[in-house]
């Protein structure tokens, strides 16, 4: 199963990278969302996949009675999702600001911080 999702992650990453390279900030944002998802999924898959056994301890038991899914990567992914959301939120606001202040969404045209050399 892990193999299947490793391939899925590869496709997500490839699509994300292409979008991030597209010289358009909205597409970059799309790519960012994809690649964040891919990274989260990488952790999840790295922790190995278990079908249908959430890491919960039933009432009356001291430990899970069956082999439950690996809880640690789940906690990590949860953390990573929330952090990723924070980063995304900032990024999207930045894109918005870039549009309102620089009037462009193509970062290659943004040359205020690194102006092009005036031709001599």
């Amino acid at each position, binding site marked *: 199963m892990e193999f299947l999702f490793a391939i899925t992650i590869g496709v997500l990453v490839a699509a994300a990278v292409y979008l991030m390279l597209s010289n358009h900030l909205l597409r970059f944002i799309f790519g960012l969302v994809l690649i964040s998802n891919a990274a989260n999924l990488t952790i999840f898959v790295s922790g190995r996949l278990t079908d249908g056994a*959430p890491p*919960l301890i039933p009432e009356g038991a001291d430990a899970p009675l069956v082999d439950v899914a690996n809880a640690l990567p789940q906690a990590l992914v*949860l953390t990573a999702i*929330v952090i990723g959301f*924070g980063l995304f*939120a900032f990024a999207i*606001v930045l894109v*918005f600001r870039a549009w309102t202040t620089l009037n462009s969404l193509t970062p290659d045209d943004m040359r205020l911080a690194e102006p092009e050399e005036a031709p001599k």
Partner: protein
Amino acid sequence: MNSVILRVGTRYLAGLLLVFSFYMMLRGHNEPGGGFIGGLTGATGFVLYAIACGTQDARAALRVMPQTIAIWGLGIALAVGLFAAIFGDALFTGQWLFIGATETEKGLPLSSVLVFDIGVYLVVFGSILTLVFAMEEEI
């Protein structure tokens, strides 16, 4: 958004989401849920409010600035971590008090961990609303 249906629906939904978010937070320690999920759900309620009735109303309903809520949440979470110091434990050591504990029953648990989750809830709730309100107003 001048939609009667949405406004009326929001009246029910926002409260519902808020109550539901507390429920998700409180049960988090034993079942799916917890501070994040609670906070996100609760925030959704006010996001809906802001969409339906405008941010002014939403802010008025909230009464406190959302960023203040968020920072208080962080403060609470931090305080929980520091609280362990009183008992000579390390940062973020959970402190438990079982009300009416007997030999067989653990009793009603009161824990610093729950307060920490409340901190998480407030942070997520406040932060998302800070963001959404500001964006709504700016656009």
